[in-house]
C-alpha cells in the first residue's frame, strides 16, 4: 500500500461571504492548495468535491464536472456527500484511491454556500441529513436532536449547561487568533447561558453557525516537493456508520460510529488515544465536543466534562482541541468542514499556523468528522515525518 502525504492545503475565510458563490469559494481554496503544493492542475489525476446541499442552497449539482471544468482539466471528478461528514468522507476516499495505486495525486475540495437561503430553508436543507420519514416529518431539527442527546447526557452523567458553555467559550477564544474564522469574538459562560434558546437545553451560542466557505487539500503518493516543510502523512482514515435516526441508536448519548471509526484508526496507525497530540473534533453543538472526548477515547464515558473543566483541551493544554475555533467559532460550511480539519492539523503539525500555533512539539494529529446526529463518523490520523520525539 502506498504512503499518502498531504502535499498542499488551502482555505478561504469562513463566514457570511456575500461576494462569493460556491464556485468562487471552491476555486479559491483549490488554487491555494495547488500553490501550496507547488503544483499545476496538470499534475492532478482526480478531483473529489465534498458538498452536502448545493442542490438546495445553490440550485447546483454535478459538482465534480463544475470544478473540473473551472480548473480546465478532464480528469475523473466525483461529488461526495455524507451530510456534515462529506469532507471527511472525501479525504477517506482520496486516501483509499491513492493507497490502491490507481491514482497518484488527488485534489479534494470541500465547499458549501449556505447564506443565499433564509434560516428556515437552511434548516430544511440541513434536516435532510436526518431520517426524513421518522424524524424530519415531526419538525425535528439538528439543534433539537443534539438537545435530546444533551438532556440524556445530563441525566446519566450530571453534565451541566455550564460545562457545555465552556466548550463554546474555549472555541471562541481559539478563533480570536484565526484570521479565517467566522467569529473572532470572545464570549463568556454567562453569555452562552443567556443566549436565545434554539432547542432547549441548547441556546444560540451552543450551536455552530450557518457559514459559507471552502477548504482544499492535495493528497499525494509522492513526497511533497517543498522540503522546507516537514511532510505530513496520513497514517489511517476510517469511516463507520450507525443508525440514521437518533431513536434507533443503542445509546442516545453515545456516538457509536465515532467509537468504531476511532478504534479502527488507532489500530491501523498502531497508536492509542493517549498518543494524539492535537485534535480537531466535530463540535457542531457544544455537547458534541464532550461526546467526542469520550467516544474518541480521550476520556471515559461520562467523564468528558473533566477535560473541559480542567483546561486540558485549551490551546496550551495537554491535548489542544479545536485550535482553529472548531465548527462553533471558525464556522461550519458543512461540506468544507472535514477538509478544513485536515488543513488546520497539517498547518499545526508543520508549525505554520501563525498566531494560533500550538507551542508544544506535535507528532500525531486526529481529525473527527460526524454526519447527521451520528450516523456517519470519519476519523483520520496524521503524523509529522522526520521528527524525533
Amino acid at each position, binding site marked *: 500500500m502506498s504512503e499518502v502525504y498531504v502535499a498542499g492545503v488551502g482555505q478561504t475565510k469562513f463566514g457570511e461571504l456575500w461576494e462569493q458563490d460556491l464556485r468562487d469559494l471552491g476555486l479559491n481554496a483549490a488554487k491555494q492548495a495547488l500553490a501550496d503544493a507547488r503544483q499545476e492542475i496538470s499534475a492532478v489525476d482526480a478531483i473529489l468535491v465534498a458538498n452536502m446541499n448545493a442542490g438546495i442552497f445553490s440550485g447546483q449539482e454535478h459538482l465534480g464536472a463544475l470544478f473540473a471544468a473551472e480548473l480546465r482539466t478532464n480528469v475523473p471528478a466525483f461529488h461526495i456527500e455524507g451530510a456534515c461528514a462529506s469532507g471527511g468522507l472525501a479525504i477517506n476516499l482520496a486516501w483509499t484511491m491513492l493507497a490502491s495505486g490507481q491514482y497518484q495525486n488527488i485534489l479534494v475540495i470541500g465547499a458549501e454556500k449556505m447564506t443565499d437561503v433564509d*434560516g*428556515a*430553508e437552511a*434548516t*430544511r436543507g440541513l*434536516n435532510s441529513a436526518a*431520517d*426524513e*420519514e*421518522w*424524524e*424530519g*416529518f*415531526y*419538525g*425535528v*431539527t439538528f*439543534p*433539537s*436532536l443534539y*438537545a*435530546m*442527546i444533551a*438532556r*440524556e447526557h445530563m*441525566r446519566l452523567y450530571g453534565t451541566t449547561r455550564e460545562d457545555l458553555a465552556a466548550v463554546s467559550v474555549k472555541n471562541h477564544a481559539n478563533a480570536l487568533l484565526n484570521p479565517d474564522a467566522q467569529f473572532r469574538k470572545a464570549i463568556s459562560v454567562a453569555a452562552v447561558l443567556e443566549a*436565545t*434558546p*434554539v*432547542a*432547549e*437545553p*441548547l441556546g444560540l451560542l451552543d450551536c455552530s453557525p450557518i457559514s459559507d466557505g471552502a477548504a482544499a487539500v492535495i493528497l499525494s503518493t509522492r513526497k511533497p516537493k517543498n522540503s522546507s516543510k516537514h511532510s505530513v502523512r496520513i497514517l489511517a482514515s476510517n469511516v463507520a456508520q450507525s443508525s440514521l*435516526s*437518533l*431513536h*434507533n441508536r443503542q445509546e*442516545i448519548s453515545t456516538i457509536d460510529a465515532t467509537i468504531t471509526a476511532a478504534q479502527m484508526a488507532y489500530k491501523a496507525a498502531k497508536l492509542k488515544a493517549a498518543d494524539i497530540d492535537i485534535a480537531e473534533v466535530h463540535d457542531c453543538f457544544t455537547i458534541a465536543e464532550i461526546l467526542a472526548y469520550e467516544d474518541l477515547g480521550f476520556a471515559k464515558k461520562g467523564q468528558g466534562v473533566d477535560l473541559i473543566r480542567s483546561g486540558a483541551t485549551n490551546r496550551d493544554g495537554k491535548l489542544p482541541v479545536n485550535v482553529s475555533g472548531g465548527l462553533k467559532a471558525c464556522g461550519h460550511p458543512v461540506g468544507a468542514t472535514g477538509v478544513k480539519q485536515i488543513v488546520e492539523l497539517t498547518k499545526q503539525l508543520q508549525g505554520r499556523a501563525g498566531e494560533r500555533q500550538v507551542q508544544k512539539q506535535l507528532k500525531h494529529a486526529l481529525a473527527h468528522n460526524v454526519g447527521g446526529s451520528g450516523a456517519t463518523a470519519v476519523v483520520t490520523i496524521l503524523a509529522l515525518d522526520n521528527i524525533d520525539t
Partner: protein
Amino acid sequence: MTTINPAKAWRKYNKRYQLNQTAKLITWSKVFSGPTGFERQGHYFVAIVELPSGERITTQLADVDEAQLSHGLKLQATLRKISAAGADGIINYGVKFKAVDSKPISLNL
C-alpha cells in the same frame, strides 16, 4: 418541510402506530426555531419515546405541562396536526404523544 403527497401519506400511515398506543418519555427538546412548515409555530416539543415493545420512535409531545416532563413519564398517543400545508395543500396530521393524565389546555383568549 417534508414534502408529502397522497401516496406518500398512505404509505406512512399504513405502517404507523395505532392510536391506543402508550409509551414512556426518554428525552425531549423544546424547539424555538423550526424548519419550513413549522416556522409559524412559536415553539413545539419533539421527543424520543419508548413503546411497550421496547422500540423507540421520534414524535412530538402534545398538551405539554413543562413542569411534568421527566424521563420515564407515561404517555398516550393522540392524533394531531403536525405541520402547515405545503404547495400540495395537504395538511400533515400524525400521531403525537401526551401525558396519560394531561388535561386539555385552555387558551383563555
